[in-house]
């Protein structure tokens, strides 16, 4: 399979997955209505409400913590590869290069993640990579996470990063489904696999990375300890 076909197949699988989840939920709700049971007014999660109907949405496979942890461990090296972690630094300066050194020229995160004054990302970075080694890479969204949502990858263990990714207070308010869409479809995430001349690629290709993340979510999204 060419990369392109692989990608199309994965996207289709992902979409099917979403459709399946939606249908499953929808049919649960019909079941609940048919049995005349109403959801409790407060306090119980929808899973508990559904459990009352005698139907459970969560199969044994859905909560296979060991499998989820293993899947996340497979995806983790991508997050901390230079192409991904260089723009998820622990400080307020982006990093550069395969050795993740601090960006030359004293570049700063700024109030919106796009730099300060005449030192904004777009001062040098264009909408696309420029040809040639050591030329500025580019993407329309080129930038760091903003200071109020830093999404640090650098220095995080797999467990720490996993818990951070799952926490809507630390992940930009995303659900697990939104995280999957983000890693599968976001254009700036995709830059990691199209980094321009002279930059190494992440250790997994994108379809394998997305598949690992999908498996992590499907298996209940447990985090490594």
């Amino acid at each position, binding site marked *: 399979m060419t990369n392109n076909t692989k990608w199309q197949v994965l996207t289709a699988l992902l979409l099917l997955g979403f459709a399946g989840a939606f249908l499953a939920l929808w049919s649960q709700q019909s079941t609940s209505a048919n049995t005349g049971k109403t959801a409790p007014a407060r306090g119980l999660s929808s899973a508990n409400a559904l459990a009352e109907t005698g139907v459970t949405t969560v199969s044994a496979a859905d909560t296979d913590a060991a499998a989820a942890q293993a899947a996340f461990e497979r995806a983790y090296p991508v997050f901390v590869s230079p192409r991904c972690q260089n723009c998820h630094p622990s400080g307020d300066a982006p990093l550069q290069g395969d050795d993740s050194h601090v960006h030359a020229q*004293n*570049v700063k995160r700024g109030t919106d993640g796009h730099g*300060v*004054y005449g*030192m*904004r990302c777009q001062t040098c970075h264009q909408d696309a990579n420029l040809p040639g080694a050591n030329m*500025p890479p580019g993407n329309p969204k080129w930038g760091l996470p903003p200071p109020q949502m830093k999404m640090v990858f650098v220095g995080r263990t797999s467990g720490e990063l996993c818990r951070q990714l799952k926490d809507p207070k630390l992940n930009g308010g995303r659900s697990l489904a939104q995280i999957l869409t983000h890693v599968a479809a976001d254009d700036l995430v995709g830059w990691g696999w199209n980094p321009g001349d002279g930059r190494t690629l992440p250790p997994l290709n994108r379809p394998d990375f997305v598949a690992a993340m999908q498996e992590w979510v499907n298996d209940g999204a447990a985090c490594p300890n």
Partner: protein
Amino acid sequence: MISFTVNGKAVSVADPPSTPLLWVIRDSLKLTGTKYGCGMALCGACTVHIDGEAVRSCVAPVSRAEGKKITTIEGISPDLTHPLQQAWIEIDVPQCGYCQSGQIMSAAVLLAENPAPTDTDIDEAMSGNICRCGTYPRIRQAIHRAAEIKARGAK
């Protein structure tokens, strides 16, 4: 044709869209105040403004300028009255001068956004502009001076 304005004047150029804006400014439009230092966004000598934001024209394809307002060092004031120009002359900042149009274009964005910059603000705003002659202390002094001139003028 790619159309934009340079220093308030409408221009259309026939250069291929991927041509660096710097080549268009210097070779097609004959505005040679903007300098070529590295061609890789490393030195800042080629800094111009696109809609008021500093851009390294050596790496910006001219297609990025389409429909935009470009300002070069020639357009920063018609008569050397920009506070930065006054301060630069008063303090006699340049040595060889090669980096200076880029320095002034970066400093202009700083002053537009921050009328009273601290030394730290200056460091953060100006670190992408290299001066081979090492005029950094005078650049810092002149930016502080320009802020004063601008504040006085605003009263």
